[in-house]
């Protein structure tokens, strides 16, 4: 893995939320949208109306940013049907922060 913008700073929730918000805006901008509010309680399904095919794009953006320190595929693969339906931005932020801390510790 060769992330284009390696992060060396300490993983903190605010920074990760800002990263993920930017990724989601990139994703939504492909559809010509730029005025979407995204916070930790925003849901992928109901609020952003993201489809499973959009998650593939998001996986690519996460990999560009964090390299192999964050395994989005594994995150999704572990989720129950209900959890996927209820998935929020906050839950993803939590997972990313947790993964980055684990990578720092390791």
């Amino acid at each position, binding site marked *: 893995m060769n992330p284009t913008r390696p992060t060396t700073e300490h993983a903190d929730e605010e920074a990760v939320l800002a990263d993920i918000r930017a990724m989601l805006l990139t994703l*939504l901008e492909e*559809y*010509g*949208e730029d005025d*979407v509010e995204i916070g930790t309680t925003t849901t*992928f*399904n*109901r609020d952003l*109306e*993201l*489809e*499973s*095919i959009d*998650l*593939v794009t998001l*996986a690519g953006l996460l990999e560009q940013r964090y390299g192999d320190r964050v395994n989005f*595929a594994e995150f*999704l*693969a*572990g*989720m*129950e*049907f209900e959890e*996927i*339906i209820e998935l929020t931005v906050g839950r993803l932020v939590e997972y990313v922060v947790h993964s980055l801390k684990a990578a720092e510790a390791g």
Partner: protein
Amino acid sequence: MSGFLFAVPPLVGHINPTVGVAARLAARGHRVAWACPDPGLVRRLAGARAVVYPCAGVAGVERPPGLRGPEALKFLWERYLVPLADAMAPGVRAAVEEYRPDVVVADQQAFAGALVAERLGLPWATSATTSAEFTDVYDGMPKVAAWLGARLDELRGRIGDPAGGADPRFSPHLVLAFSTPELVGPTARTGEHIHYVGPSIADRPAAADFPWAWLDPGRSKVLVTLGTANADAGGRFLAECVTAVRERADRVQGVLVDPGGTLAERGDDKDVLILPTVPQLPLLERVDAVICHAGHNTVCEALWHGVPLVVAPIRDDQPVVAAQVVDAGAGLRVRFGRVTSARLGEALDTLLNDPAHRTAAARIRTAFRTAGGATAAASHLAGLAAGEA
């Protein structure tokens, strides 16, 4: 000569493709019949003399219009597809016992057809009227696939052969997909028994009168439709489409299908025509672009005529079909719930001005028209009945 029983849900888009196939089989001297919870609907589409065995269905399932994505999928399975299979099973079984077909042709979403055939030891084919199941969008979410698999296993225990193991969505004998790999894309499921026959487009009884003289030969024409099953959610979207067309009235005319009557009509409007139904196939011969919800039938009918599309998927298979259109280069995707008239207009301008999308749509048109359609489907089914598959 052989007998074929088509097990279909009471849904126009699932019955229509079987009508052409059944007609080809009958023309070769085979016997054809349907099992469906709505025999009247089959007779309306296939002709008053069609042999239809009634079965029970599920009534009054209203999906909240706001449901999307995986939530809509779960609702569809729990509240419609699985109960439909339970309800249809006794009628399908009775139809098989009375009609004695050689092959059951089971719609991909009418699980009862497949499971009953398996239980009775009959060869069965899958009729896949949408191609979305052929790309594994939930591939990366194994627990979703496991959940769906568990529902099918329970269902098999109730209405099928508990010792059987076939996935009722994919017959191990024969799968007829009414699309082609040129549209489904490089990740399409393949196999010796999977046949992409292209759309089965049959002439339909003419719908309401259409004011053909209204169409202005000096302007581009766009057809806006959300299909037959989405009247609940379309008001905002259709209104944005009207605005986008009006802003281009010097060069574009729009025909909007509005079955729910959500738009206000103006009298004597030379730019926008709003109708509850339209004769879609003849109209597609005359339009330059289609704006739609990416329903499989509308998309295939547009591409059958080489017309590029703006696709605004709402739910179910529509996001997958929309992605197929975009990946094939035959259209642009916008977001149904959020798109503005400005963005719709830009997408429309791109389709009308840039020949690339029209060229890609024409490529799919060629693929569709050489795939064999209903005739090829009938040949594969006859082969299965004759034990060649």
